[in-house]
């Protein structure tokens, strides 16, 4: 303790902040928001405003849907005015501060095409756009964007679309040093773009400059699966490499030692700002600078103390950082390496090893394994996976990385000052980056290298670290019996296995209507363990409901096998996510309506995957009954054996409609049927009668037949899966008149219906007011 005071203080600080969060005590350092914080002006529904703000982040531009360019940045607000004021006042707002409401606070701005795309850090801008709370989908246990932004002290978003604008009033209104560093960053990014091929260039931009936005999703996934993604996120390794290369270079030029260390410290600070100053790089930079300054004055600093210093500085500025995934991964990796790497090296006999290659490999293995061990629970918690291949993959990847960074730095330095030589050095940097990529691809293809699993809960995490802690004590204190380590590990394994058994031991049918925006995805969990999925939500440009929502939700419910997947009809917002589901889970049967979507390439891919995996595939039609779900029986009420044609929307009217009878309750899942099918179904009114109904077609009106249809169903609870309050007024009226209680995914997030033999309960993910 006394040997490492800073580390000890840091641990106490972490514990204190955690306790404050657990007991809901406002932190002493918490961001207290004054009355004029923009979040107090942000309404539930989007409102059009004029906003005067300063850009405080490096704007990022990406391609978006419909050939638009999407630019995102964070801005610090100065003044706001509702846009009900007529447009001619816009220029006066800028000059006359009396016309504005003075506000403060950070917001995110998302702009589609309609702005001057040369926006930069430090620009004072006037925005006309829509102010609203950040949009997020709410599903239990799945990443929530709104909470993520809240940890960054951002509670509002301004969207700038067609008809809106952003104009630059003046420049350089933020920190000039940061602005200068970011200018250099842009020059370097442009250099890489100019001289290197696309994929290698994107990786080099990620590795050296911390910009991952250009890296293709598929390649990024491979880095995540192999646990090597940290090299793309400017972490300790990158900082260490940059520092080492810089120091080596100047020492070779016989610069005095202390001077080089101090120069390196300055360079690292610039580098941190240049790469976006995220928490891991700030941590690494503080540690490195502390170490270097210590060395410059002849003292050898202690790693854990430097780590403690970094942690204290970061937490004092922003206590919420404790809950940031990057913070947790970054700090735990270092602590774990410091504790376990030396002991593993001893175990492998590294110090007695003569052959240099074997010695290096064993040492790398020890360090890699030590780092991996510490972050297993954190990776499982955030990424739903455990990746043993990470231990092996990091050894060659980190080795090659040194050369990539070295050649990359050479290329950038020369390219900046001597442009006509840039091309030559680009070749080698590109070549090495290519080898790095190929290595990662090889490791990510190794079967059984990683496992998807549920997000670990509190007990699993605590007992894992308890076991790790006891093993650590055992390694350093020979007097304590080894039996305790064995017991701790066994205790953890027991907790792990038994929590899994308890979690799924209940006697109810669980129907989860997930929040996937505009689309449907409903999970049915039967008491004895069977699982069915009705529709898989949409899969668009950056959001794949199958991959991003349904997969984590199912994994967290400890589901690995899906007994039946139903695709009600071939619309993108219903089957889009099914590819990810077929890929990530063992699907034992697929049911669809037999209707095909001849226009969509994705539908052909879906059919191909079903065929390749040899999944039994059935077409459903009216009068089919599906048995085998234990207490649950499913009747198919639509489509009829002769498909609808000539209706307002044949594809929707031919949706599969399922009536689920469970105990004394029944649930009607209506797909996307419209007037024609609803009218046809009235003939079978006896079978329409249900307690619960999933309203057809995301709450759009069914016309004249609606009232009769709802009356015939005569249920109690109605569920609508939609992405906006755009539910038809007629429908709302009809639902009210027919005495339904209505739940919508837009307002309530994911809705869970728990049905027992004689009773039921309904849980929502968020309250009525978003």
């Amino acid at each position, binding site marked *: 303790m006394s040997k490492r005071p800073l580390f000890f203080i840091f641990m106490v600080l972490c514990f204190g902040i955690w306790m404050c969060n657990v007991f809901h005590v406002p932190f002493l350092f918490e961001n207290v928001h004054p009355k004029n914080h923009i979040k107090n002006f942000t309404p539930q529904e989007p409102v059009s405003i004029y906003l005067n703000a300063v850009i405080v982040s490096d704007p990022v531009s990406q391609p978006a849907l419909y050939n638009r360019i999407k630019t995102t940045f964070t801005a610090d607000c100065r003044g706001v005015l509702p846009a009900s004021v007529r447009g001619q006042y816009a220029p006066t707002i800028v000059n006359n501060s009396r016309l504005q409401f003075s506000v403060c606070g950070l917001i995110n701005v998302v702009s589609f095409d309609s702005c001057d795309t040369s926006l930069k850090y430090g620009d004072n801008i006037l925005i006309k756009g829509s102010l609203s709370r950040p949009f997020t989908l709410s599903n239990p246990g799945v990443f929530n964007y709104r909470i993520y932004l809240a940890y960054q002290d951002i509670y509002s978003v301004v969207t700038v679309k067609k008809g809106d604008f952003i104009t630059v009033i003046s420049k350089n209104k933020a920190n000039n040093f940061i602005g200068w560093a970011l200018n250099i960053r842009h020059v370097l990014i442009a250099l890489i773009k100019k001289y290197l091929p696309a994929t290698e260039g994107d990786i080099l931009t990620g590795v050296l400059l911390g910009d991952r936005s250009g890296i293709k999703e598929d390649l990024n996934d491979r880095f995540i699966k192999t646990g090597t993604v940290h090299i793309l996120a400017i972490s300790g390794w990158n900082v260490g490499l940059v520092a080492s290369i810089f120091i080596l270079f100047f020492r070779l030029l016989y610069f005095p030692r202390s001077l080089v260390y101090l120069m390196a410290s300055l360079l690292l600070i610039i580098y941190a700002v240049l790469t976006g100053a995220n928490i891991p790089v700030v941590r690494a930079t503080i540690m490195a600078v502390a170490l270097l300054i210590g060395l410059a004055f002849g003292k050898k600093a202690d790693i854990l103390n430097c780590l403690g210093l970094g942690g204290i500085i970061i937490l004092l500025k922003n206590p919420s950082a404790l809950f940031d995934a990057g913070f947790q991964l970054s700090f735990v990796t270092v602590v774990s390496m410091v504790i376990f790497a030396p002991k593993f090296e001893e175990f492998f006999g590294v110090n007695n090893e003569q052959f240099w290659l074997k010695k290096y490999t064993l040492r790398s293995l020890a360090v890699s394994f030590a780092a991996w061990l510490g972050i297993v629970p954190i990776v499982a918690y955030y990424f739903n996976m455990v990746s043993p291949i990470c231990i092996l993959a990091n050894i060659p990847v980190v080795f090659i990385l040194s050369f990539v960074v070295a050649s990359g730095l050479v290329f950038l330095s020369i390219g900046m000052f001597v442009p006509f030589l840039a091309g030559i050095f680009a070749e080698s940097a590109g070549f090495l980056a290519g080898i790095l990529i190929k290595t990662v691809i090889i490791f990510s293809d190794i079967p059984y290298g990683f496992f998807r699993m549920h997000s670990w809960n509190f007990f699993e995490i605590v007992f894992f670290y308890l076991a790790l802690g006891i093993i650590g004590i055992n390694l350093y204190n020979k007097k304590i*019996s*080894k*039996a*305790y380590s*064995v*017991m701790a590990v*066994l*205790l953890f*394994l*027991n907790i792990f*296995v*038994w929590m*899994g*058994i308890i979690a*799924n031991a209940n006697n109810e049918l669980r129907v989860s209507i997930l929040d996937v925006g505009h689309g449907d995805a409903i999970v049915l969990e*039967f008491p*004895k*363990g*069977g699982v*069915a999925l009705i529709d898989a939500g949409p899969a668009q440009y950056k959001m794949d409901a199958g991959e991003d929502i349904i997969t984590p939700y199912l994994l967290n419910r400890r589901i690995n*096998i899906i*007994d*039946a997947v139903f695709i009600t009809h071939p619309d993108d917002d219903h089957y889009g996510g099914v590819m990810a589901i077929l890929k990530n889970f063992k699907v*034992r*049967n697929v*049911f669809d309506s037999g209707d095909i979507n001849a226009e969509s390439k994705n539908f052909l891919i879906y059919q191909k995957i079903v065929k390749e995996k040899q999944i039994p595939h*059935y077409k*459903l039609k009216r*009068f*089919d*009954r*599906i*048995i*085998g*779900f*234990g207490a649950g029986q*499913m*009747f198919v009420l639509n489509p009829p054996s002769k498909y609808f044609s000539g209706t307002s929307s044949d594809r929707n009217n031919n949706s599969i409609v399922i009536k689920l009878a469970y105990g004394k309750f029944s649930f009607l899942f209506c797909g996307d049927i419209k007037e024609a099918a609803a009218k046809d179904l*009235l*003939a*079978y*009114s*006896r*079978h329409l009668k249900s307690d619960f109904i999933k309203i057809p077609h995301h709450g759009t009106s069914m016309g004249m037949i609606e*009232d*009769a249809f709802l*009356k*015939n169903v*005569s249920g109690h609870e109605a569920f609508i899966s939609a992405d906006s309050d755009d539910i038809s007024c007629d429908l709302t009226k009809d639902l009210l008149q027919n005495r339904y209680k209505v739940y919508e995914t837009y307002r309530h997030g994911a809705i869970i219906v728990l049905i027992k033999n004689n009773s039921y309960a309904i849980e929502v993910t968020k309250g009525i007011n978003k």
Partner: protein
Amino acid sequence: MTKQEKAAIFFLIAMLILGLVVKYYKIKTCRINPKIDVQKIIEEKQTIKINTATVQDFSGLPGIGPALAQRIVDYRNEFGSFLMLEDLKKVKGLGGKKYDKIKDYLVVD
């Protein structure tokens, strides 16, 4: 290792094996095997549309005489179209039992 330590370790290993056994037992036995049982659950007897049928159409049904048939049509003329089959029960003389006998022949239109 002391006796107590050995006992504790043995106990934990036994619990672990028990847990694994229970877990794999559940996996093996609790999967569902959905099958389509193609069965005509609904026989197509419905032929009479209750909102356009005449008195004669109704009198053809089992247990419905001309007087009751007339009352059905009168009710419909007075209160408007039937929205659901069950609404027929509101007609005087068409109670639960009589209704149950004829409902399979009827359809809402």
